[in-house]
């Protein structure tokens, strides 16, 4: 009996926006190989990109001496992406997201990443650093729909 092929993995990149494409490519190849739809793949990649962009820009201020670690676990019907960092803890579940009709009417800019994460993913969990770990962990979960 052969073992199923694992599409799991971890990527660590410097905390600068020029490395975002490496995270996207890492996720795409594995999610596609695991047989998820292109629609699901695009949504997960977008949500993780938004999470990492926020982390790099707002928490790390594009500091190349810092790093972002993205771990991917693919179960038969669930994709779980865990993003860990050592920045000041920030739980995206505590953030207020914009009301889009008002946002568009007022021609606002920025602050859409968390809303995208919520609209695309099935669950967003956050575990701040604490006595047992110095890393914060943001866990994004997406269930297979087809």
């Amino acid at each position, binding site marked *: 009996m052969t073992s199923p092929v694992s599409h799991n993995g971890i990527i660590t990149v410097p905390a600068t*926006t*020029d490395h*975002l*494409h490496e995270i*996207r490519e890492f996720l795409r190849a594995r999610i596609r190989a695991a047989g998820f739809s*292109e*629609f699901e793949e*695009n949504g997960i990649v*977008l949500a993780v*990109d*938004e999470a990492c*962009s926020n982390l*790099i*820009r707002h928490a790390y201020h594009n500091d190349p001496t810092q790093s972002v670690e993205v771990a991917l676990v693919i179960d038969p019907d669930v994709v779980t992406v865990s993003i860990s960092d050592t920045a000041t803890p920030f739980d995206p579940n505590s953030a207020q997201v914009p009301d*889009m*009709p008002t946002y*568009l009417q007022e*021609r*606002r*800019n*920025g602050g*859409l*990443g968390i*809303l*995208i994460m919520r*609209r*695309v993913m099935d669950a967003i969990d956050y575990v701040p650093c604490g006595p047992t770990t110095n890393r914060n962990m943001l866990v994004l979960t997406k269930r297979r729909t087809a």
Partner: protein
Amino acid sequence: MNQFTAVTQQDERGICCIDLAGYLDAHTATELESIINTVITDGCRRIVVNFADLEYISSAGLGVFMVFIESVRADGGDIKLAAMKPKVFTVFDLLGFPVLFEIYPTVEEAKQAFPSLDA
């Protein structure tokens, strides 16, 4: 790796078409912002953005268009969007952006939507 390019050309009707290609994210959005800023500074207010070769957009990319739309329309112009791949349109649609921006199937249709300067 060249992740993103944006090439501008102006036609005989004074419409500036910006052809996008590649990946528009938090890293490359600043490049597009700079290019649109130059187009506007050079006096163009009739702008079509050609998405035909754009493979990816994140919220940072959407934000670039929000920066300029108000001032361009205030001057009697517009930024019209055209030829999006479905996966790119999905991101616009996810947040309701089609309410604010005119999005056309082709660049030519977007250009035709501008009123004639002779009128």
